[in-house]
């Protein structure tokens, strides 16, 4: 286990280094770093100072070391628009995005698994087919348009829910959250559904496939032969075995939920880091874009690492077969 852990950590470290090199090359070799990192409105003296601070007058390899050093100290530049360290801006907005992503994951689990199991158990009946047709629709609906239609139905026509923003927040362990106030919850519902829909369709497919596979297994037949109630067979014996692949895939998908939050946050004006990214791209606020990129790479590598380690704990075969693939 320890050897596996060390090897896996080593791989993650290499990936981070590779990404840092790529980002560095992207900014410094392709574009002009002065344009990327220094505000176009800065006067010559400021530009001079920034060039010296960032070491842009030094040879390339020293620039790279400086870039890495600054990044390690958490200095990824200062936003032109907000005049604040880019990293702090992003981290301030992170709780909003995480809250949205977690809410979406919960919806997709608690909606997707039951629906998928029904579709699997009744795969040749209209209810099963209906659920599968709905899941194809869920895969095909463009996320942003679906969000706009939710706004149209529930905010503009019915007037039940607000069309955007985050609503009232209360601090929970010092982090502002929406889901503890009624107003915040009302603001959370539509974006969370919007973000959850695609993953729900995925969970439905996974748990349907799992159900169809599991229901033919001997232990399910045996449980039935033992005279257990159908309810117990489905909810205990089958569900447990369906959960493993679903949880693994969902763990891996958490990163993509955060990435797709960019779209949801833009549609619903949800003040998370995805909306910050889009605003920064449109405002040419490049330090924030660079900082977001580095941070998201780090988050992704972390998620992949955690999922791999958890998976190796669940399934010893992974550890023994050398590579985690």
């Amino acid at each position: 286990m320890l050897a596996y852990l060390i090897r896996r950590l080593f791989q993650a470290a290499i990936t981070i280094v590779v990404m840092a090199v790529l980002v560095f090359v992207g900014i410094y070799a392709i574009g002009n770093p002065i344009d990327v990192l220094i505000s176009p409105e800065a006067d010559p003296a400021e530009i001079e100072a920034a060039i010296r601070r960032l070491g842009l007058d030094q040879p390339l390899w020293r620039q790279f070391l400086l870039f890495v050093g600054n990044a390690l100290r958490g200095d990824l530049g200062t936003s032109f628009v907000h005049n604040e360290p880019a990293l702090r801006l992003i981290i301030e907005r992170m709780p909003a995005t995480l809250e949205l992503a977690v809410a979406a994951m919960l919806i997709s689990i608690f909606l997707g698994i039951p629906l998928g199991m029904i579709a699997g158990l009744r795969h040749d009946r209209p209810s099963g087919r209906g659920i599968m047709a709905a899941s194809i629709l869920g895969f095909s609906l463009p996320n942003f348009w679906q969000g706009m239609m939710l706004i149209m139905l529930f905010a503009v026509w019915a007037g039940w829910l607000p069309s955007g923003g985050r609503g009232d927040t209360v601090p929970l362990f010092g982090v502002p959250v929406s889901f503890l106030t009624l107003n915040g919850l009302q603001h959370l519902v539509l974006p969370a559904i919007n973000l959850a829909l695609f993953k729900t369709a995925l969970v439905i497919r996974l748990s349907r496939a799992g159900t169809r596979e599991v229901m033919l297994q001997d232990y399910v037949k045996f449980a039935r032969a033992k005279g257990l109630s159908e309810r117990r067979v489905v909810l205990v014996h089958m569900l447990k075995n369906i959960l493993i692949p679903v949880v693994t895939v969902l763990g891996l998908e958490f990163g993509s939920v955060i990435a797709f939050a960019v779209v949801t946050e833009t549609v619903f004006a949800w003040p998370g880091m995805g909306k910050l990214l889009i605003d920064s791209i449109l405002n040419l606020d490049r330090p924030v874009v660079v900082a977001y990129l580095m941070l998201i790479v780090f988050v992704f590598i972390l998620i992949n690492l955690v999922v791999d380690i958890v998976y190796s704990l669940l399934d010893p075969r992974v550890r023994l077969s050398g590579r985690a693939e």
Partner: protein
Amino acid sequence: MSESRTLAAPVVETPFMRFARQFAESRVAVLSLFGLALVVAAALFAPWITPQDPYDLAQLDIMDGNLPPMSESFSGTTYWLGTDDQGRDMLSAIVYGIRISLAVGAGSTLAALLIGCSVGLIAAFYGGRLENFVMRVVDLQLSFPAILVALILLAVLGRGVDKVLVALIIVQWAYYARTVRGAALVERRKEYIEAVRCLALSHRRILFRHLLPNCLPPVIVVATVQVGNAIALEATLSFLGVGVPITEPSLGLLIANGYEYLLSGQYWISFFPGVALLLIIVFINLVGDQLRDVLNPRLQR
């Protein structure tokens, strides 16, 4: 290939005929294919079938702005799907938008297919360090969601149809490289490849004339689904404001333009382009599903 066709007696099914028959077993898939053909035809012949050229300012009348669907214009023609703020007929705008969406989606998929297949084939055929390196890059790229990669690329590249194309190609090539490599690894060990190697044919000829055709079935499935994904991704990027420029409005941009009007209840500017987008993607996905069933060697009857 050509020999086998001339040898076949007239009663024997050609592979293509068998493929067509199996595909036609699903009525939904055939209907989807038909719908898709209609959409493509509409996009191709847009200038001749639309009631108005939506980007010829001389044909627009600001007096007709923001009319709801089915309303009549100042000059007596009917706007079936309403008009936008500049008095543009939405039906015409949608057909022109489909044109750009399809061109970007299909164009980028085709280019990514060529690049990805070549790289994947070469990697599988030569193996060794080259293969290792290529597959590491593929793994690395595919561990990030496509939308994120595309967003970052466009943040660096800037706006424009050509830049969207480049971003979509970079996002997609890795899928094909992985798919082709998987198929090629299996095919490489088969006897016909050994045979053509004994004939001392050039590597290029072995790769592209013998190995590639036999790796195509899974690639076709991936490519079909990817066209849908590419169209959806382009629409999303355009909606976010980093995609195609306003001079070339795709469906995504039309939807984005209608966003502010949606909040005041004028739903049609966003609604109908979205329906068009949804239909195209559903058609493509349904055709892709059936292709997967037909071309899957494990289900081959």
